[in-house]
């Protein structure tokens, strides 16, 4: 079925493009949302990703499922967008460094209700590595290639991320109530 839609989509049929988007956006957009975190930025990235997916349609050979193929493009484009955004954010932060105090670790403030919420409290790098490895199923070698880091660096970020998430999600992982002090339920060695 996808093959027929894809052929029509390549030819520029809006209905076919809409059908592909409608069928696959619940999964693709969820991936983008997970990797980006911020909903407004995610919406912008989603548009960029879908344009890229549709532009690349003629190169789809049907060797994997369309959803899998589109997923790869989505991850790749989202990471590109994140890199761009972080570069801008970094240059802005450098300028404002002396005047703005940033709270980097809100871990102690509240426990998180979900993995997504907890992951939002990780550093951007750790968050990306965690999402790519533990959620999307990428290997450390693949992550290293995508992010321009070493596989060892990817591992190190992942284990730090997991340790922090374990504390933030102690009430979920241990089946305890959210108002329980995380220091009491998740020992920090």
């Amino acid at each position, binding site marked *: 079925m996808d093959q*027929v839609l894809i052929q029509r989509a390549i030819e520029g049929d809006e209905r076919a493009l*809409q059908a592909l988007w*409608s069928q696959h956006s619940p999964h693709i957009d969820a991936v983008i949302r997970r990797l980006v975190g911020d909903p407004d930025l995610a919406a912008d990235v989603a*548009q960029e990703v879908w344009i890229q997916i549709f532009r690349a349609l003629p190169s789809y050979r049907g060797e994997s499922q369309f959803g899998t193929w589109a997923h790869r493009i989505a991850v790749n484009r989202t990471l590109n967008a994140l890199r761009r955004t972080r570069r801008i954010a970094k240059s802005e932060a450098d300028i404002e460094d002396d005047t703005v105090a940033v709270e980097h670790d809100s871990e102690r403030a509240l426990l998180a209700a979900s993995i997504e919420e907890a992951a939002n409290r990780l550093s951007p790098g750790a968050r990306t590595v965690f999402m790519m490895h533990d959620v999307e199923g990428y290997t450390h070698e693949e992550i290293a290639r995508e992010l321009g880091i070493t596989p060892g660096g990817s591992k190190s970020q992942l284990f*730090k991320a997991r340790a922090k998430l*374990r504390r933030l*999600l102690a009430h979920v*992982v241990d089946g305890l109530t959210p108002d329980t002090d995380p220091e009491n339920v998740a020992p920090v*060695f």
Partner: protein
Amino acid sequence: MSHLSSERLAELADGEPTVAEAEHLAACAICAAERSAHRRLLSMALDERDRIAPPLTEWSTLAAKLREQRIIADDYVAPSTVETGVVPIAKPRPHRRAWLVGLRVAAGLVFAVGFGALGRMSAGASVAPSGKEMTTLASRVFRGSAEKVMPSVFGDPTSPFSSVEDALATLETSQRNYDRAVAFIAAHDSTVQSPDAGDVFRTRLAALDEMAETSRQALSVAPADPVLNQYYLSTLGAREVTLRQLGSVLPPGTRLTRF
């Protein structure tokens, strides 16, 4: 041996301990419990992969950009099922044609039942149609489908259409109006205020998925069939609207995977 560090325990969620670590884990209840907790966390992360979410953008917004970039071709002409000037070498096998009619009927039936349910929900009635309603719907759809596939309809002097192209253009316009109507109904759907709105939308989503699957099967046999394309695209449009509605009624932090 002292307790394992939290990062090492995180690594052991899907890694192998050394001999010394294994001995420690066998003897230390605290570290063993921590390793189990990390494994549960890893399992939660894996479940995230199946998560679905309402689209991050509206089709109309995306379509405008696709049009700008000429990915959508405004002059695209949909292939017609009626080929002119081409004489088929072999006639279609009767049983295959009958099967196609059956699939159209099935698609029409689930379509009518699904959207009947949508109307009933908006009116505050039960979602499930009664047996009598199903029978009535089936007879209507059956009659309607039979009329649609009979070639004699094209020669009907009372038909408002002068050609297949004319009918297809009307179908296209109707499709767009239909999509707008579904979006409007969804925006004014009183179900959203109901405490069990989540369940209602999940039921609707499940019905729409069945409808989409039935249409998809039919389309694999007749990919350019305009009637089947209508059913399929309308179902996907309604699915997207319902997914957005479901996303809007779920409490913060609730995961949306299967429904």
